[in-house]
């Protein structure tokens, strides 16, 4: 007994020294390559003052894709209806501002998050019992239902034309949204994205985030070890919905309008494509995907709309067939090959 006791404290430390264990213990730490995306976002502000409107749209898309990543990439909930929450957030901000009930931007975002979270919780409670095609259909129908309701309630939502000319008060009462120069919009979107990103990053490295990955990888085993699978999924779906609602609110505020396109199948499909293009289940997939997609769309789609659609289709097919983890996954494979070759001789 006494002979074994000195060895016991040594064993865990030896286990921690193991490279695999080290990777697990330190996986949440900040890496050097996490700084460049944010520095690039700041540099963009100074380098391209004429494109800040586009930049704000880009940041909003990143946030939207990040919210989808939480549900689809981490928890494995296959949804084609995420625009439902984007739209819920956008219409919350839009209607409150249009009818002069609440014009302050940050509070508006909080309310948008709440409204979208409510939609996410209510739909998640019933939808997440199902899987596969049924789940896909249910998310799709929920979104279509919301869009039809928004279209029906023309007296309040403006119907197809939406609500234009929203009056949003300055951020913190100081920084005003100028429709011509999107400086404030850009920095505001960047700040919101950063806060949300830190939240998501903390969440996915927490035990909760780990259990989501477990549910995605093997539902049966997670059930077997006694994880409350359905509740985890519902909570994750609700959080993801709230983030999508913030993205929608941000979109309504920076554009100063809201219309039915916020709830479109097009928007849901686009964010789906953006995320997969960048690489799902990876924090920065949303960033890479949004930059690649929007830059291509911005410069190609307006000149050659048909070629853009053809190219996009081919790209999706190629990704589905050969690059399952998107651009980031491709980069990781190349990097691993490069380091393996360098390490070999």
């Amino acid at each position, binding site marked *: 007994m006494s002979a074994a006791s000195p060895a016991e404290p040594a064993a865990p430390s030896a286990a921690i020294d193991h490279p695999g264990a080290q990777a697990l213990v330190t996986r949440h730490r900040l890496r050097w390559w996490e700084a460049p995306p944010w520095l690039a976002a700041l540099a963009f502000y100074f380098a391209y003052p004429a494109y800040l409107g586009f930049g704000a749209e880009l940041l909003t898309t990143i946030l939207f894709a990040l919210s989808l990543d939480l549900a689809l990439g981490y928890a494995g909930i296959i949804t084609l209806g995420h625009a439902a929450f984007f739209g819920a957030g956008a219409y919350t901000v839009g209607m409150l501002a249009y009818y002069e009930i609440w014009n302050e931007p940050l509070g508006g975002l909080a309310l948008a998050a709440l409204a979208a979270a409510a939609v996410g919780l209510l739909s998640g409670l019933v939808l997440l019992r199902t899987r596969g095609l049924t789940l896909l*259909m249910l998310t799709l129908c929920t979104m279509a239902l919301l869009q039809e309701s928004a279209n029906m309630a023309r007296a309040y939502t403006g119907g197809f034309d939406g609500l234009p000319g929203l009056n949003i008060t300055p951020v913190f009462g100081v920084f005003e949204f100028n429709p011509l120069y999107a400086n404030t919009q850009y920095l505001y979107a960047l700040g919101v994205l950063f806060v949300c990103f830190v939240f998501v990053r903390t969440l996915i490295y927490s035990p909760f985030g780990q259990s989501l990955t477990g549910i995605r990888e093997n539902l049966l085993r997670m059930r077997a070890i006694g994880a409350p699978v359905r509740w985890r999924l519902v909570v994750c779906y609700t959080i993801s919905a709230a983030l999508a609602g913030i993205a929608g609110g941000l979109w309504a505020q920076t554009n100063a309008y809201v219309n039915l396109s916020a709830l479109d199948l097009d928007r849901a499909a686009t964010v789906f494509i953006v995320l*997969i293009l960048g690489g799902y289940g990876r924090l920065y997939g949303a960033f890479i995907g949004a930059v690649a997609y929007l830059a291509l769309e911005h410069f190609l789609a307006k000149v050659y709309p048909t070629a853009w659609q053809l190219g996009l289709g081919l790209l999706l097919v190629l990704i*589905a067939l050969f690059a399952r983890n998107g651009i980031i996954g491709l980069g990781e494979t190349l990097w691993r090959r490069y380091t393996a070759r360098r390490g070999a001789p």
Partner: protein
Amino acid sequence: MDFLTNVVGILLGGLSAGTVLFIVSVGPSVHMGLMGFINLAHGAFAMFGGYVIVLAMNRAHVPFIAALALGFVATAALSVVLERTLYRRLYRAGELDQVLFTIGLIFIFIACAILVVGPESQTLQLPAELGGQLNLGFMQYRTYSIFLIVVGLLIAIGISLVFERTRIGAQIRATVDNRRMTESLGIDVDRLFTITFAFGSGMAGIGGGLGAEFLGLDPQYGLKYLVYFLIAVSVGGLGSLIGVYYAALILGVLDFVLKLYLPKGGTMFLYALTILLLLWRPQGLFGRKET
């Protein structure tokens, strides 16, 4: 009498729309049931077949029935090529990749349709014998709608006979029930997939052509009716022939009635109903419970 005529008219209109929905969706439903493969692109195959049929009739003046056969063969041939080269690589992949792949296919079909044929909508010129009105004894109704309903019924009966009475039908049923056991018995499941996929896509092509008269036919077809096709498949139950037939007909009639009496927001009820039904029976009306 007047009321009766109204009801019958609505029923016939809805049934003919539902029939088209059935013809487009039956193949994909069986294929999805066989494979567990989520295919969002069957509307695109319907569009392809529709284009072949309509263009053959309008530009090459091929007779109606021959054009339908041509549409079937062309769509089936295209689908065999796609199945052999692309689809089969994804049978074992996750749902995510399948959704992504088929969305990509839709985009490619849209772009190709715009490039090859042009963005404008195509119209189907019905042959004279189908264009008029048919005397039903107590009322007149469009011959083409009656023709569609009869054709749909014949197709449903034909396919169910193949399903119930032939060797290949038995093999398909066995595969839907238990794929690994069927493979162990030495049945070439791979070949079965290709055959059902080709046949189903060919049917979808015919459906695209038959429906062009009132659904229209333009490059966005595959996206525009995607939700309807998916509702028919998922409400009917994957791999269930009877299920898709009933689901498509109910959907057609409901849609017709709602558009007539509730032109604003009628589709809302359709979506709500679908949600409720899928929550009540996630496997669809006639689907088998997932094991």
